[in-house]
C-alpha cells in the first residue's frame, strides 16, 4: 500500500468518526465524485461521439448501402435476363416463320419441277406410244395387204392342186375380196 492511500484511509476514518454518515449521503467526497464523473463522462462522450459511434454507424450504413446496391444490381440483371428471354423468343418465332416460308417455297419449287418433269416425260412417252402405234398400224396394214395376196396365191395353188384349174390371178383376188366381205 502506498503512503497516500494510507493517509486517505485515515482521513476517511476520521471523517466517519466525526459524522458516521450513511456513505451515499456523506458529502465528504461529493466534490470528488462530481469532478471525476464530469471528466470521465465528458471523455467518454467525446470518444464515443467522435470516434466509436461514427465507426459503428458507417459500418451499418455501408452494409445497408451494399445490400441496397446488390438488390438493385440483382433487379437490373433480372430485367436484362427477362429482356434476353423476350429477344430469344422473338428470334425463335421469326426463325420459325422463316423456316416455314423456306420449306413451303422449296416444296413449291420441287412440286413445280416434279409437275414439269412429269409432263415432259408424259409427253415423251405419249409421243413414243403414238409413234409405236403408228408403226404397228402400218405393219398391220402392210401385213393385212399381204394376207390378201397370200390368200389369192394360196387359192390359186389349192385350186391348181385340187382341180388342175388354172385360176387367173385377178379372179382369185376377186374371190378373196368376196370371201372377206362375206366373213
Amino acid at each position, binding site marked *: 500500500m502506498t503512503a497516500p492511500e494510507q493517509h486517505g484511509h485515515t482521513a*476517511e476514518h476520521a471523517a466517519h468518526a466525526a459524522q458516521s454518515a450513511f456513505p451515499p449521503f456523506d458529502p465528504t467526497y*461529493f466534490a470528488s465524485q462530481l469532478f471525476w464523473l*464530469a471528466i470521465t463522462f465528458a471523455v467518454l462522450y467525446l470518444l464515443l*461521439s467522435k470516434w466509436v459511434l461514427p465507426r459503428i454507424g458507417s459500418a451499418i450504413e455501408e452494409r445497408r448501402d451494399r445490400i441496397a446496391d446488390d438488390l438493385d444490381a440483382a433487379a437490373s440483371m433480372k430485367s436484362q435476363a427477362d429482356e434476353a428471354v423476350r429477344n430469344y423468343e422473338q428470334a425463335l418465332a421469326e426463325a420459325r416463320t422463316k423456316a416455314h416460308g423456306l420449306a413451303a417455297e422449296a416444296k413449291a419449287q420441287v412440286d413445280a419441277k416434279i409437275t414439269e418433269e412429269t409432263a415432259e416425260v408424259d409427253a415423251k412417252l405419249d409421243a413414243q406410244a403414238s409413234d409405236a402405234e403408228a408403226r404397228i398400224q402400218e405393219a398391220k396394214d402392210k401385213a393385212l395387204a399381204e394376207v390378201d395376196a397370200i390368200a389369192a396365191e394360196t387359192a390359186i395353188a389349192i385350186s391348181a392342186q385340187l382341180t388342175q384349174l388354172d385360176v387367173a390371178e385377178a379372179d382369185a383376188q376377186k374371190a378373196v375380196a368376196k370371201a372377206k366381205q362375206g366373213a
Partner: protein
Amino acid sequence: MIEAAGQPVEGLDVADATNPIKQFEIHPVFNFDLNGIDLSFTNSSYFMVLSAVLVTGLLWMAMGRAALVPGRAQSVAEMLYEFVAGMIRSTTGNEGLRFFPLVFTLFTFILMGNMLGMFPYFPAPGFHGFTFTSHIIVTFALAMIVILTVMGFGIYKHGLKFFSFLFPAGVPWPLYVLLTPIELISFISRPITLGVRLFANMLAGHILLKVFAGFVVMLGAAGGGLAIAGILPFAMAVALTSLEFLVAFLQAYVFAVLTCIYLNDALHPGH
C-alpha cells in the same frame, strides 16, 4: 480494512463481511486537493474511469475490422447501436437522433457501472467491488445533465415557447392557477425522480444482496445445524444476483428511455 491498526483482524473481518453499508464506502486512492476542495481519486473514480475505458475499448475492439459480414463481437456492438437508435426513434422521431451520442453515452456508462457493481470482488483498490451509480450525487448529476440539455436545447430552439408546457392548451384560463403549479412541480421533480430511481434501485439491490450474503456468513460461523440452514440465504443470494443483473440492465434502460422522453419535450414542446 486490513491496515486499520490496533483492532483484532478477525473481529473486523466478521463485521466487514456482514455490514451491508460497507460496500458503499468511498476510499481515496490518490489524494488531490484543489483550493481546499477534496478532489481525490477514489474507488468510485476508479470504477467511473474503468467504465469509460471498458465501454470505449470493448466497442472499439468489437469494431476492429468493421467487417461487412459482422462477427459476434461486432454484431453485439451494432445491436447496441441499433437498440439505442431505435429507442430514440420510437420516442422522439428521427430529429431526436442528434442526441444519439448523449443517450448512447448515458446508457452504456450507467449499464457498465451497474454491471461492474455486480462483482463482489474486483481487481480494484481494496479488492472489492463498487457501484458508482449507488451514490445519489452521481445519479443526480447524470439526471441534471439530461435536464440541463433538455432545457438548454428547448430554450435555444423554441425560445419562451418552450415554457408553453406550463400552460396546457385548451384549458379555461382560471384553471391555470391550479394547473401551472402542478406542471411546474412535475417538471422540477423530473431530475429528482430520474436520479433517485437509479440510485435507490442500485442501493436497495446491493444492500439486499449483502444482507442475505451476510446471513450465510453468520450462519456458517454459528456452525452445526445452523450452518446447513445457511443454504437457504445462499440460494436467496443466488436468485437475487440474477435479479440484480436484470435490475442493472433495466435501470440503465429506464434512464435512457426517460432521457429520450424528456428530450422529446424539448424537440416538440406543448405536447
